[in-house]
């Protein structure tokens, strides 16, 4: 068993805290993606697992053994770096074989493992080339080959696809997923790209400002973001987040330039300030007059398979995902409907999710929107 246990891990640089106590358990064979914006501490956490950074407080255990004071090479981890980190003076064969050479494996075993990795990664034709003679994707595959041959307990990926172009990134993403299915080794992948995170992860760890915001399967994180940050970070286009206040009888009222529109009901105390969230694909947009809140379409982004309309109502911007179509709706007036079942509520003070009572009063609130002046 090579499960990974991160307990109360903190990191400080010159007394300045960077990680504020991370707790996570990664089961054996899981593909975990740590996602978050630049500077959130995700790479630092990965480097601490690898042993490349000291742990200021807490413990990291792999397979039940605390690794805090163990050398990087002895932790059973292999790492793939963002900019490949290949040895420029060595051929592909020498690069892949280097950890085996250091481990003093017999030459025949070295050759066998190198060839096997090269076959898996389609590198057999490039074994005698140097890194400078390879494309970005090939270099990344060499870096992965160097990790594979060590047969590690844990694979660590530090934003390995961010230097590749969009097409290659998708290809490599699929290759990494296939590789994981084939090897079934515990893998930790750091990225700031939410598409990578959603597509690769068995479990997502969303980080922000040195703290874990949410841990869970990608579908859970997407469907039930635990905080305003997660709600805004995961998903493209981002979730619409609108300020609201709880009125009489627990009605959640959107604050729209002096007007208040009830969109849901809750058991929250009157006057509590909340944030209402809704995914762009859940917003219903209608051209029929009166079918919701009136809004103007400011801009339409064409994505081929779909379109994103950015609508403005009462100085609030709402993104709406629309099916592909030819009709030009830019500048036109539309009616926006926010289905209650798709709404998310967050505390404006703490930013944390508020679980609303299961039965909202209004089935399609904005259709019968109660406008209170």
């Amino acid at each position, binding site marked *: 068993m090579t499960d990974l246990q991160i307990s109360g891990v903190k990191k400080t640089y010159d007394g300045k805290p960077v990680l504020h106590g991370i707790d996570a358990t990664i089961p054996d064979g899981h593909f975990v993606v740590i996602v978050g914006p630049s500077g959130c501490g995700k790479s630092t956490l990965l480097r601490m697992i*690898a042993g*490349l950074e000291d742990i200021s407080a807490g413990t990291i255990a792999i397979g039940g053994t605390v690794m805090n004071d163990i*050398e*990087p*090479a002895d932790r059973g*981890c*292999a*790492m793939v*770096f*963002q*900019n490949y*980190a*290949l*040895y*420029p*003076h060595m051929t592909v064969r020498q690069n892949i074989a*280097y*950890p085996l050479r*250091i*481990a003093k494996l017999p030459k025949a075993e070295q050759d066998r493992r190198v060839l096997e990795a090269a076959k898996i990664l389609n590198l057999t034709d490039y074994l005698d080339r140097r890194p400078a003679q390879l494309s970005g994707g090939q270099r990344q595959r060499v*870096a992965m080959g*160097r990790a594979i041959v*060590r047969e590690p307990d844990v694979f660590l990926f530090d934003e390995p696809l961010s230097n590749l172009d969009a097409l290659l990134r998708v290809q490599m993403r699929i290759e990494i997923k296939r590789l994981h299915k084939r090897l079934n080794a515990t893998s930790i992948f750091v990225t700031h790209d939410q598409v990578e995170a959603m597509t690769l992860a068995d479990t997502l760890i969303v980080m922000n400002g040195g703290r874990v915001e949410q841990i869970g399967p990608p579908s859970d994180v997407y469907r039930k973001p635990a905080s305003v940050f997660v709600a805004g970070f995961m998903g493209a286009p981002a979730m619409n987040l609108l300020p609201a206040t709880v009125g009489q009888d627990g009605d959640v009222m959107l604050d729209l330039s002096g007007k208040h529109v009830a969109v849901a009901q809750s058991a929250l105390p009157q006057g509590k300030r909340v944030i209402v969230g809704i995914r762009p694909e859940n917003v219903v947009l209608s051209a029929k007059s009166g079918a919701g809140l009136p809004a103007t379409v400011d801009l339409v982004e064409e994505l081929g398979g779909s379109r994103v309309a950015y609508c403005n109502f009462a100085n609030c911007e709402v993104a709406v995902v629309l099916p592909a179509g030819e009709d030009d709706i830019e500048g036109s007036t539309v009616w926006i409907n926010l289905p209650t079942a798709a709404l998310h509520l967050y505390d404006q003070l703490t930013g944390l999710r508020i679980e609303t009572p299961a039965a909202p009063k209004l089935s399609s609130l904005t259709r019968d929107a109660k406008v209170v002046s």
Partner: protein
Amino acid sequence: MTTDAIATPVFSKPVALRRISDRSGLNSAAGHLLMVLLSIFCLFPVYWMLVSSFRPANTMFETSLWPTQPSLDNYTRAIDAIPIARMLINTLVFSAVSTVLQLLTGILAAFAFARWKFPGDRLIYTGVALTWLVPFQVVMIPNYLLVAHMGLLDSVLALILPNIAAALAIMLLAQAMRGFPREVIEAARMDGANNWRILWEVLVPNLRGTIASLAILIFISTWNEYFWPLLLSRTAENSVIQIGIQMFMTAEGNQWGPLMAASTLASLPVLVIYVVLQRQVVQSFMKSGIR
């Protein structure tokens, strides 16, 4: 199609473009001319030394560009007057061993400064850097007394000892190592390489350009060393070629012929190194300059 139409180029250069092109051509020619003049200015003394070494004593001061009665007399006289072969070997040993040792100590010290954090590391590095600013004349007497106490006067070993380590080598290599991608070193650590392996198997092979340019710098400066060997040498057999050349400059007058012959022989190894490694030398200097 008429003949005139064929004769007229369809895509002729616009007049303004042609003027710019002509002007850049003129600038390029002027630049080349300047470089040729400067090259002549630099190479002429070397050429004059070579030509003079073949002139007999009675035609030494003639102004023709090549010897009218070329002879090898000056070489014979120089070889008879001083043990040139022995001196050249001494100089070669002195230069080569100093170069290797300075590189070795430089690489080791630079790695420590570039990759390790230890108490007082900055202070020690500053101290090393400051020794570069201390002129040779300041340390000359202490060094002399030291080798004298060790009983090493009039030996090549005494020449080498103060040249075992140099601040320039440490600083240049430390800078190059600091500029080396951290991820590659971390990858080596993850692969199980210890510091020794990281230094010799990862860093050094990738710093060949810097090391080569530094080696050439050290070798040439040691080859041209005059004052330190002058202080230590007692016999011609244990001396270096620069001292040998000076032996032809006496109070009775300078023996220009043998002096030029000995100078030519002294210049040959350095010239050979440069000619053989010309491309590598230029590339390594350019690379280390860019870094």
